[in-house]
């Protein structure tokens, strides 16, 4: 049976096993861990990171990186909040579109500089990370967007569930993040033009030979990542309500961690959205569970987070290697 499986699928199975191991470990350490409450805590927390991680994955697949996503998130959360304070009657769907549109504009600046300016993406986005944040500082003028100035529907959105099964909620914010992941995942695996992201990432020269306009593909990747950072910004605004200039800070690194743990090759050309989803959930589960460990002091938490992420990646690598071996043996 294992013979029929694609190496990518094996990877996902290994990643799922790592997540299972982590959950089992914490359930022996924390009282009442396997509860609907814990599920809701982790799912809503991961929902803020997931869209950003999906956007990051697309950029990484093209052999680039986007370090400005946290700053884009902050700018979008602030500006959309501002718009809602001015026009509380805005249609919710329009608000989400606006958030993604603003993010896409910011992303296109990155895209132009990387794709046609030929500046390495790590330099460009390190620059725009500071640039977008500075823009926010200037634009915000030290005013805070507060939850009580926002329309009721937005403040209540984090508690709203699409459906609830025995206490397990599918909250609206979680559904939004999952929808983004699903749409991008389906597009990347089913749509022919979307395969160009992989082509450009795995071998830019070959892609050029094959007549792919790689500059346009890279540009598009940054626009999509900006738009998804914008969606993350919208969820951030809904969840926290109180937006200052520090909003979204550090999310670019959370996203990179989720993407790498999720099995997207940092060398470009490979990775799946299901992997990114599991990676995001895995990192977030470790993070949120560590704060609930009774015997762990605050100062060891970050160190242990790092160790557990490395352990998860190791388990994933070893497991997918041995599954591959099993597959080869099965094939003889």
């Amino acid at each position, binding site marked *: 049976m294992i013979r029929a499986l694609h190496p990518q699928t094996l990877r996902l199975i290994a990643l799922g096993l790592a997540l299972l191991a982590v959950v089992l470990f914490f359930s022996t350490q924390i009282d009442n861990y396997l509860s609907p*409450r*814990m599920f809701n805590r982790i799912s809503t927390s991961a929902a803020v990171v997931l869209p950003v991680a999906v956007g990051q994955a697309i950029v990484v697949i093209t052999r680039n990186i986007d370090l400005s996503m946290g700053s884009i998130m902050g700018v979008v959360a602030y500006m959309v909040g501002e718009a809602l304070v001015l026009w509380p009657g805005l249609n919710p769907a329009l608000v989400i579109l606006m958030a993604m549109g603003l993010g896409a504009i910011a992303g296109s600046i990155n895209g132009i500089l990387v794709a046609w300016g030929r500046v390495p993406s790590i330099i460009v986005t390190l620059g725009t990370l500071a640039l977008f944040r500075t823009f926010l*500082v200037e634009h915000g003028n030290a005013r*805070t967007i507060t*939850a009580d100035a926002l329309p009721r529907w937005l403040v209540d959105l984090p508690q709203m569930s699409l459906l609830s099964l025995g206490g397990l909620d599918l909250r609206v914010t979680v559904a939004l993040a999952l929808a983004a992941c699903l749409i991008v995942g389906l597009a990347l695996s089913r749509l022919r033009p979307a395969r160009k992201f992989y082509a450009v990432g795995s071998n830019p020269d070959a892609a050029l030979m094959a007549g792919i306009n790689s500059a346009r593909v890279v540009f598009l990747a940054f626009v999509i990542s900006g738009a998804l950072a914008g969606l993350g910004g919208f969820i951030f605004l809904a969840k926290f309500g109180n937006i*200052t*200039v520090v909003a979204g*800070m550090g999310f670019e690194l959370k996203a990179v961690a989720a993407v790498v743990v999720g099995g997207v090759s940092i060398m470009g050309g490979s990775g799946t959205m299901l992997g990114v989803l599991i990676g995001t959930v895995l990192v977030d589960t470790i*993070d949120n569970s560590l704060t609930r460990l009774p015997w762990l002091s605050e100062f060891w938490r970050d160190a242990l987070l790092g160790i557990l992420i490395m352990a998860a990646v190791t388990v994933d690598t070893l497991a997918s290697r041995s599954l591959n071996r099993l597959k080869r043996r099965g094939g003889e």
Partner: protein
Amino acid sequence: MKMKMISGLMLGAGALAGLMGSAVRAEPIQATPGQEVNAVLLPKFLGILPFDQANRGAQEAAAELGSTGKLQYIGPTPENSAAGQIEMLTTATTQKQHVVMLSNNAGDQIAPAAEAAAAAGTKVVTWDSPIPSGKGESFFVAQVDFGSIGVVMADMVYDLTGGAGEFAVLSASPDASNQNAWIEAMKTTLATHAKYKDLKLDDVVYGNDQSEESYNKALGLVDKYPNLKVIMAPTTVGIVAASKAMQDENLCDKVKVSGLGLPAEMVSYTLNGCAPEFALWSFVDLGYLTYYASYMLATGAIKGEVGEQIHAGRMGDYTIEADPGREGARRILMGPFTVYNKDNVEAAAK
């Protein structure tokens, strides 16, 4: 010989008496307006309300004193706070600014830069958050007595728990020197007064002044300690995030949030009962007093020594004293702070 010694002693005693007399009689030192003071107000980072308010106060004082120099409000962006502060302090030194007013976010790492500034003639006055070792700093303009913040924090927990129960602290970062000092002061208060014997501090966690981290940490505390009654957050970011988390998860009846917060950000949570009580001081006044003291230091009107008394415009008289929390360091104590609840929060939020 003997006579000489006695007369010498008497002379000494007389001189001492004279000194004491002058110290008692001393009028507070007045600032001479219209001098050139180039000053830099350096907050932890730019773009949030409390620091902006402090700048408003400093600008007000500068206008009042008619300084012919420039008062610049510059600071790092939030993602570059500690490193940015050190860089900007060094730049201010090479620009030969007369005085830098610093709300320190870089712990003792900034001390070498502050010492270099002092050696080159740029005075460093801290406000809001001091340099822990006091090295390189002339004095610290303290918003309130750090010991009394400890008492206020303990009292708010006492009120909200009804005198007995478990609580936890959600702080900013593990190396924020002001928050750490307040938490220590609160622990001392809890340990030394019988009134607080039934309050139990379960844990101290850090949200690093990030909304999502503080939000998740607050929920983590609730899950970890089922009998938790109060989350005490002595940081304006933490208190809002914790309040929102309790509201989102319908926990406000069970767990109350308190700490230090801005009325404008807290008003809805105070009125709906999630955070019935919190405290803060005026950042406008803090900026005003800091500028007055810095102006007088830069113009040589004061030397920054213990016992010097200054007159700070509309705020009245203040004395430089030894800082009880930091050996060898000096402070000017502003105080007091206001405790906000549903009766006064709306007026303050406007």
